[in-house]
């Protein structure tokens, strides 16, 4: 056992306990709690005893565990409570999971982002369970009058072997709840885990397959009105005037009005960003009526001036610039090509790259690019708000409840404690719901209407409102000596309006002469984090480029990478290398073994890729076949090192989804602009990957590890784009450099 200090000293823990008792558990609705099994319903306890903010125990031994973080499909609502249950030493079948509300007094980092929920939650979740177990043991020791050290636990029971006595957790829960939380608790050894490392099914499974109202868009309330917004059709435009006479006269319409998303003197935070802050709101009784009235609005738009504003970046003020003008994708492409040809600001330099390129035996140069992307969560943006004079309840899909609570409180003129934000299961997040302007909008609309409202975006609203993945570009150069050793590596990467560069990642540290430069170009198109920000492009570009360098060097692509990683491990260049070269090489070796790499099959064209991001390591081999002249992805084999795997089957699901999602975006998806207007606004023109285009088979292998777990929502997504491009090359004889690859028509047409 490992002894750790609880994060609570006695006083603060009591305080949080008291707060938790003051209402956290009360009023949980159908929306938040997972449906207990029929067996659990029959066995519901008569009384619950609160042990700490994370858990309560029933008089019959049933346990309710709170899942603190927002659920966007990454399955934390199952895996986080599993960690608590492990340390509590309870049988998983006796656990009911509830979604916690936003409560910063008890929970830390209630945020879905950066693949960090499990990594950051790990210690607190274990401690919550271990603390509970400790208190139950103490209560049993008291009852039995034996030393606590003589008591063991297993599956919700306490044992005193010497006297052959047994108690269920439920029998001492009442006494345990009255005890003071310990200042130190013992945590289990990894080898003793019984729940962590075993596959447990999604706790919301039954609710999902029976269509229960789990999502924000499903919320109904007596007297609730439906609200929609109209926003400018193009970036660089704003509202000039509107005529709502016809819309107001339409059936079911309650109100049409202009609304500013923020108060005039408000400084936007990083998660407030939205290009369109002056909106027309249509409110009515039903969705269809509001949709129709919105179409009847007569609106005039005008050009926006050049905008310079301040933004609060987690406490630091930052200047932001939205240039005037209606932007075009062709101009974006020209800008990227231009920028890639001029010297940019140096982010990292090792050795003497200039000199090395001059004396190189072979030099290879390649450029890669990708377009803007819309997140396209399947559940369009929406939020429920019920704002009265002195209190606001907001409920719906949000990845950043803690940040948005501040934003909406400022907009409504209410103190934080008068704003209650409740989290629903989300129909996808992918980073889009970090940016909660729609929550603030919903609050402001409800306040104006003095009624509960649900703001609903149409797909077209959702896809044309901004917060896109930036458009990126990367120029690479590599130098080989006469023995085909990589002697210099140069990357110059940039984007509109953000750069994708990760200067301290592989192959930095593995090459003696290394240069990384970056650039950005301002745009009035708003962007935001999109599943594995930056990595979602740079991984594929770099891994495609390395494939070409390996080919030029006449080396096997896996062997070539392993040689570099060996260098990085044994004799690293520079001191700021982000990755662990041994773990990186580990996934490559595992995927080589599991995919039977090197075993030739004339009909199967293979590409390999490996990447480190969000603290985890992923290598993938993609097998492609050609059917009727078209490349078809036959199989993906993945090897992953994310430390301890909490819920293996759910982890495999994420790895499979990451691969499919990555292939889809690299191959098919793009948002392009003409005169500031997104040229795609729904799934007829914006292509997402479909069944027939998905790999026929995906096999995922995890590196066995005792290292604390790291994230998995993002890491399997970026590298697959490199494996795809490399397999496409093998299948078609042509390299693919510019996403979406489907647009490189010369072959795929």
């Amino acid at each position, binding site marked *: 056992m490992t002894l750790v200090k609880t994060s609570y000293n006695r006083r603060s823990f009591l305080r949080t306990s008291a707060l938790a008792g003051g209402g956290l558990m009360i009023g949980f609705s159908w929306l938040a709690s997972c449906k207990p099994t029929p067996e659990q319903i029959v066995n519901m306890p008569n009384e619950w005893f609160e042990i700490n903010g994370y858990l309560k125990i029933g008089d019959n031994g049933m346990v309710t565990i709170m899942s603190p973080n927002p659920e966007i*499909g990454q399955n934390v609502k199952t895996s986080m409570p599993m960690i608590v249950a492990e340390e509590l030493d309870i049988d998983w079948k006796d656990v009911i999971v509830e979604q916690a509300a936003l409560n910063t007094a008890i929970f830390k980092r209630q945020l879905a982002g950066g693949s960090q929920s499990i990594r950051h939650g790990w210690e607190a979740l274990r401690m919550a369970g271990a603390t509970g177990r400790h208190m139950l043991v103490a209560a049993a020791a008291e009852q039995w009058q034996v030393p606590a050290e003589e008591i063991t636990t297993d599956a919700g029971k306490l044992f005193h072997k010497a006297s052959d006595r047994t108690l269920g957790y439920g029998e001492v829960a009442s006494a345990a709840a009255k005890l003071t939380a310990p200042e130190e608790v013992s945590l289990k050894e990894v080898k003793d885990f019984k729940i962590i490392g075993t596959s447990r099914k999604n706790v919301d499974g039954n609710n*999902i397959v029976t269509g229960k109202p789990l999502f924000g868009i499903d919320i109904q309330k007596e007297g609730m009105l439906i609200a929609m917004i109209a926003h400018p059709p193009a970036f660089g435009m704003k509202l000039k005037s509107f005529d709502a006479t016809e819309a107001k006269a339409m059936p079911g319409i309650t109100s049409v009005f202009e609304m500013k998303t923020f108060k005039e003197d408000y400084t936007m935070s990083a998660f407030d960003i939205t290009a369109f802050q002056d909106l027309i709101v249509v409110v009515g009784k039903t969705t269809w009526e509001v949709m129709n009235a919105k179409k009847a609005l007569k609106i005039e738009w005008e050009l926006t001036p050049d905008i310079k504003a301040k933004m609060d970046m987690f406490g630091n003020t930052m200047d932001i610039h939205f240039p005037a003008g209606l932007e075009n994708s062709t101009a974006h492409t020209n800008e990227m090509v231009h920028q890639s040809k001029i010297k940019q600001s140096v982010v990292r330099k090792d050795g003497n790259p200039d000199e090395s390129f001059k004396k190189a035996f072979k030099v290879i140069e390649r450029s890669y690019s990708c377009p803007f992307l819309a997140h396209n*969560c399947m559940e369009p943006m929406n939020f429920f708000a019920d704002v009265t004079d002195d209190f606001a309840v907001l409920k719906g899909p949000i990845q950043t409840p803690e940040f948005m609570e501040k934003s909406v409180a400022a907009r409504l003129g209410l103190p934080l404690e008068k704003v209650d934000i409740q989290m629903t299961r989300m129909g*996808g997040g992918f980073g889009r719901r970090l940016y909660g302007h729609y929550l603030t909008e919903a609050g402001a609309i409800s306040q104006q209407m003095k009624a509960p409202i649900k703001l609903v975006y149409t797909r077209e609203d959702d896809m044309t409102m901004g917060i896109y993945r930036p458009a990126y570009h990367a120029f690479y150069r590599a130098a080989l000596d006469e023995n085909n050793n990589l002697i210099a590596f140069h990357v110059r990467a940039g984007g509109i309006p953000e750069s994708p560069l990760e200067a301290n990642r592989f192959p930095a540290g593995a090459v003696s002469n290394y240069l990384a430069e970056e650039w950005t170009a301002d745009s009035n198109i708003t962007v935001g984090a999109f599943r594995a920000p930056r990595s979602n492009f740079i991984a594929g570009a770099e891994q495609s480029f390395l494939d070409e360098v390996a080919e030029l060097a006449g080396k096997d692509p896996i062997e070539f990478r392993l040689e570099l990683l060996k260098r990085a491990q044994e004799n690293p260049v520079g001191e700021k290398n982000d990755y662990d070269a041994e773990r990186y090489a580990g996934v490559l070796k595992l995927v080589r073994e599991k995919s039977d790499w090197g075993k030739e099959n004339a009909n199967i064209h293979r590409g390999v890729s490996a990447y480190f991001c969000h603290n985890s390591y992923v290598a993938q081999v993609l097998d492609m076949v050609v059917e009727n002249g078209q490349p078809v992805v036959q199989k993906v084999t993945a090897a992953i090192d994310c430390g301890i795997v909490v819920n293996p089957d759910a982890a495999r*699901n994420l790895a499979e989804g990451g691969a499919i999602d990555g292939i889809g975006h690299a191959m098919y998806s793009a948002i392009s602009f003409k005169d500031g207007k997104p040229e795609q606004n729904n*799934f007829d023109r914006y292509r997402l990957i*479909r*069944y027939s285009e998905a790999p026929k088979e995906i096999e995922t292998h995890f590196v066995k590890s005792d290292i604390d777990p790291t994230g998995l929502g993002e890491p399997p997504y970026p590298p697959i784009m490199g494996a795809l491009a490399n397999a496409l090359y093998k299948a078609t004889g042509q390299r693919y450099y510019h996403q979406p690859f489907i647009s490189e028509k010369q072959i795929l047409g």
Partner: protein
Amino acid sequence: MAQFNLNINGTKQQIEVDPTTPMLWVLRDHFNLVGTKFGCGIAQCGACTIHLGDNAVRSCQLPVSAVGEQSITTIEGLSENGDHPVQKAWLQEDVYQCGYCQAGQIMNASAFLKSNPNPTDQEIEGAMNGNICRCGTYTRIKKAIKTAATSINI
């Protein structure tokens, strides 16, 4: 506004509504059957799939006035206790990630299996190609459809 008599999940319902209103919104806003999901509104994503008689249809493109005598089944009415073979297969394979598109997937798959209880991989792909899953659970959905087909055919 006009009055319509509907048969939804085996229950007779009456509603007065604009005849152009898509069944998607009749179900969601008027009958609080919110298992049927809004995804795109133009029949491109399949999230709103319901059964009209035995056929899977996109409820966002089905005006209430076009329903007539035909029975409507939604995810809430697919089975009494969530135990339709397709639902059970989805649970067994733990298909979902975010879960939002899955009601539409299940409704499409269940209608498809009724008409073709022993499908090939290609037939599954063809039948399911209109249902988008942004999380990328396609390989699991295919597995679940095969699992369901096996259990139906036993």
